């Protein structure tokens, strides 16, 4: 796992705890790009530095701010890991981690406790991203298929041929030009619509 490529923003108003946590994260090979004590103007800050992971105390009032931001900027998902104080026992921590995006680090300054939690956050981050990528791909494919259908229809009309014939024409064009079917379809639409 290449943790070093992930940038962590730490938000904590307790300087001592923050310092210890930063130390632990660094010895574990994570990159803490910034530590904020006060969260005034948080959203502008996050927009500027674009961290991959934000570590924030469960009880920080700015948690709603972060959720608002991810509701507005869906393109920049940044998982948030929370660490809470004494009230969480190990059962709760386990439940929290299993529940999804957020994770607890209670008495979180022990390196052996931090590692699996950050790793789980990273894993979630990556799963989320691969899901997004798949979704994007499906969307592109769908858009491509629509284009291909449209191109086929135009070809059928223009060349008075049947659907199979139109599809073969497209495929041949694609092979000749070493381009994807979707790209060729888009070109065909452009040309035929210009002619019409």
């Amino acid at each position, binding site marked *: 796992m290449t943790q070093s490529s992930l940038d962590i923003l730490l938000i904590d108003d307790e300087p001592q705890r923050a310092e210890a946590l930063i130390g632990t994260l660094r010895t574990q090979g994570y990159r803490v790009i910034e530590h904020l004590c006060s969260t*005034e*103007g948080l*959203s502008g800050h996050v927009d500027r530095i674009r961290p991959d992971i934000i570590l924030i105390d*469960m*009880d*920080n*009032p*700015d*948690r*709603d*701010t*972060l*959720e*608002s*931001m*991810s*509701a*507005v900027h869906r393109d920049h998902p940044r998982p948030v890991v*929370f660490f809470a104080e004494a*009230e*969480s026992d190990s059962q*709760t921590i386990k*439940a*929290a981690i299993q*529940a*999804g*995006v*957020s994770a607890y680090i209670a008495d979180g300054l022990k390196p052996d406790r931090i590692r699996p939690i950050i790793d789980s956050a990273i894993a979630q981050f990556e799963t989320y991203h691969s899901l997004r990528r798949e979704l994007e791909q499906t969307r592109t494919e769908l858009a491509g298929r629509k284009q291909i259908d449209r191109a086929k229809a135009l070809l059928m009309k223009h060349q008075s041929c049947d659907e199979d014939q139109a599809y073969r024409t497209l495929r041949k064009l694609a092979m000749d030009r070493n381009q994807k079917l979707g790209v060729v379809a888009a070109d065909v639409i452009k040309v035929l619509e210009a002619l019409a």
Partner: protein
Amino acid sequence: MAEQLKLGFVPLLDCAPLVVAREQGLFREQGLNVVLSREASWSSIRDKLNYGLLDGAQMLAPMPLAATLGLGSPALPSCSLMSLSRNGNAITCSVPFYQRLYEQADGETSPTALGSALRQQLSQLGRKPVFATVYPYSNHHYLLRDWLSRSGINPDTEIDWRAIPPAQMITALAQRRIDGYCVGEPWNSLAVLQGHGLIVAPGQQLCPEVPEKVFAVTQAWAEQHPESCAALIRALYQACHWISQCRDKQALLELLALPPYLDHSLLPLLETGYQHHWGSAPLHQQFFDPQMNAPSPLQGQWLVRQMLAAGQLSAADAELANRRLLPQVFRIDLFEQATRAMMPQA
């Protein structure tokens, strides 16, 4: 002694039903042993319900539905046992920004006139107006969007949005980081009292029938604790009734000002009495009305429309919500069962 229940609240005036139910012994009368836990954010309330750190909580009205649909968080099937309040939100602008709108509107102060003034000012401002809300799945957010839309302003393209916690709103306004916000009380009245803001539109002039806060638990908890659910509903309903009968608002404020409830943030209101304003109609925060307290799926349908308009919900999710989820999320059945024998007089 009954098993202890831990209920979360956010320090806003409309946590009053929970505070009153505890301080007036209404939970105890129902055989409940309740501790109230002050929470710093709505996100934290939702997560703590999820992890079993809280049994129930005050929530923004749209939250049980948003959590059930998994909007912005892992899906957590939740339900509203009762609506707690309405008409406690308002849209407030900074004093210079308000003056700008006021002059443009030729001294008219209705929300409609000030909204049109804002639209006319868009081109002269040289930048987008900056507005803040606390949380995306909230009536504050929907109310502000609704006022802008009705004024002919596109909330998605013509406004610069910020997210700020309630207690930091006034400072942001005073420092001119934002032009205005929509938030619950006391953060509108306090801005007026401190001379940093003026109220453009109280919630009841825009959407008078809409509950703002609810009392919520997870669907799993409701399933496992039917008796506690009924007892909680009864105690909170009595508390809402108590507040409506409370002639001495000062006494109520003093109760709310107890730590850990709202403590020192309320002192300015205590000193001056709870009234204002220049121009706008006063806020009429309301806690008791059997129609409003009953968590009906109709309230849910309104929320689904707002979520759709705000782009938070896909059409498919909206249909799912309307067809299947609303009766699971808005438990009017549990509310009616629990309150059938009591029905305090309106």
